[in-house]
């Protein structure tokens, strides 16, 4: 009897975690961009980095309900870390340096998580913001190491695995970022569809009840916050490695705030929000800034207001019908019941 129930739960979790055809199509398209838009590697690379960064915030905001304005702390720490190890020849291989930077950011995430998880939403906003501002000021103060307001000069990034040089066209840089993004996404996906991920959702829904059914609320949050910090760190390290440069701007409030905007555009709690939001935000920004270099911020602001006020619900209404048709089709192709395809809802 018990084992039958356990089997059913296991089967349910497995079904839930299955890759849908739409997701596969998304990633096929993402990798196809390498050949589709050869002239756009630089903006695509920035988009991939922003997507990874947004993914890190989505993990804590969308799944654990921790609102943060301080993701830039991890982004910046790892950015400087990877820049410094490359500059002083401590770790020359970019991939190793990337992993080390991610771990450094995760360590910072672990330490600061105890501060962050104390308060409610507003406290968290302030504490996370404070941590990133403090780190920014530290980087400014120790300008003999970080280069201060001039940025970290003279960073020389070696070829990846000793073979793939970061070329002027940004091709290798983009492929590198995209692969890292994909691996991190798969990891994050694995985490949120695991029982651990389910327990996070329970905590987000009602921490008291979650604690009552035996979920160690604090440690779950510490774990996801640390993981998220690591991902944010990887994004920061990617930025430094692909530009061979790092400046105080990596710690700026704008960077954390942009991230919230990205998630507002893309939506939270289904992992793709950050990715799609990043694509839309970056391309919109690039496009409008080319049209009007002086006043682009106004138009971006306007678009965001429109999206928030009128866009999202209505857009969802429009696509509901389209989605129904699409899912019917995919269900028929995949020869399995349609309800599983739309399981996430």
């Amino acid at each position, binding site marked *: 009897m018990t084992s039958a129930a356990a089997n059913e739960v296991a089967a349910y979790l497995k079904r839930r975690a299955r890759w*849908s055809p*739409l997701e596969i*199509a*998304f990633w096929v*398209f993402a990798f196809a*961009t390498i050949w*589709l*838009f050869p*002239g*756009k*590697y*630089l*903006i695509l690379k*920035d988009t991939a980095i922003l997507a990874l960064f947004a993914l890190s915030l989505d993990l804590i905001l969308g799944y654990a309900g921790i609102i943060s304005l301080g993701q830039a702390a991890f982004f910046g720490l790892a950015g400087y870390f990877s820049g410094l190890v490359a500059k002083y020849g401590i770790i020359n291989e970019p991939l190793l340096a990337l992993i080390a930077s991610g771990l450094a950011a995760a360590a910072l995430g672990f330490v600061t998580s105890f501060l962050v998880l104390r308060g409610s939403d507003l406290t968290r906003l302030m504490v996370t913001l404070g941590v990133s501002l403090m780190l920014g000021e530290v980087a*400014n103060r120790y*300008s003999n190491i970080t280069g*201060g*307001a*001039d*940025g970290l*000069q003279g960073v020389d990034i070696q070829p990846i695995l000793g073979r793939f040089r970061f070329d*002027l*066209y*940004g091709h290798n840089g983009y492929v590198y970022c995209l692969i890292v993004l994909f691996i991190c996404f798969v990891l994050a996906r694995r985490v949120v569809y695991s029982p651990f991920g389910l327990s996070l959702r329970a905590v987000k829904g009602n921490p008291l009840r979650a604690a009552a059914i035996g979920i160690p609320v604090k440690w779950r949050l510490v774990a996801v916050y640390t993981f998220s910090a690591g991902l944010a760190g990887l994004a920061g390290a990617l*930025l430094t490695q692909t*530009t*061979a*440069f790092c*400046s*105080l*701007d*990596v710690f700026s409030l704008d960077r954390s705030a942009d991230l919230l905007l990205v998630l507002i555009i*893309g*939506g939270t709690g*289904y992992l*793709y*929000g950050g990715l*799609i*939001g990043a*694509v*839309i935000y970056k*391309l919109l920004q*690039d*496009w409008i*800034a*080319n049209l009007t*270099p*002086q006043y*682009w*911020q106004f138009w971006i602001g306007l678009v965001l207001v429109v999206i928030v006020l009128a866009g999202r619900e209505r*857009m*969802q209404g*429009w*696509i509901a019908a*389209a*989605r129904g048709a*699409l899912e019917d089709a995919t269900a028929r192709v995949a020869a399995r019941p349609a309800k599983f395809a*739309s399981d*996430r*809802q």
Partner: protein
Amino acid sequence: MKFNHLLMAASAAFALAAASGARADDIKIGFILPMTGQQQSTGKQEAAAAKLFMQQNGDTVAGKKVELIIKDDGAVPDNSKRIAQDLIVNDKVAFLAGFGVTPGALAVAPLATEGKTPEIVTAAGTSIITEKSPYIARTSFTLAQSTVPMADWAAQNGIKKVVSMVSDYAPGADAAKSFAAEFTAKGGQILDSITFPLANPDFAPFLQRAADQKPDAIFVFVPSGQGGIFVKQFAERGMDKAGIRIIGPGDVTDDDLLNGMGDPVLGAITAHIYSADHNSPTNKAFVDAFKKANNGMRPNFMAVGAYDGMHLMYEALKKTGGKTDGDSLIAAIKGMAWESPRGPISIDPDTRDIIQNVYIRTVERKNGELYNVEFETFPSVKDPIKAAEKK
């Protein structure tokens, strides 16, 4: 699964972004400027001057059409670098120009070398910039160019004790260092060297610290655009009434903002490369045309940097007969000399840095408006930091 509709939107945006393009034979000049953020007055001035130059001199050089591309980097060096890379790779620009702040110019230097694309610095003023790539030339100024004559003048004119106050970044450090070296060598005394963060200009606590030491003068450097706040807070503490003078490179009495600073700034002594009041026919014509094209806005030293930058690029293209490879262009640039609105200038063939007159000015009211009125000239000043290294 709401991401399918977003996916569609995303692909549409991609297609849109990919659709842009231009003719291959045009010569493109890419200006990277801070059009937004704290340094936006620099971007505004430079863009206006570059456009004015093209209006006056036409958009064809050596039989080819010239296209001006202006991009906003918000004075964030990561952005400058990405935009520069994009301009080199996709737009295949003949020149990169602009650079509102030193970090941006420095970040782009390796790209200029790798892409063999001349980088014409029309704003940033740290000495080391031109040494970072053999493809960098400058039409703005170096800070030491103004600060060393300033120190000379101060030492000769009864200023004995000075507190130096500078923004904490490379140009600020340059300014403080070169001023202090020259001033103490001439018998002056630096009571205190104060630095403040570049990003949040609240000068009040620093000004108080300076006032407490009762100097004859405060030597100040802040980037173009922050001078107004500095002078306001200076006056709020009554430091002008206490007989403390403001001296420094001309960034603090920037022509763009000078008129709004009011009486406290009267009598401030600055050394700089350009004043809108400079007395020459070339300058009068430039100022009139600039004001007419820009709703009465007064050109400042940033505008003249971009204007001369455009002149330099046009002349280089004429000299190469429209050839746009970096080596020919940079060879053409070396040693070029002409009459600018600021006076006679030339590009030093050894350092690719600018050689120009430096003027000592005082702020006076003329026809109801505040101007930096020039009263002494140090002719043909080379960058003193590089000159000192050579010896």
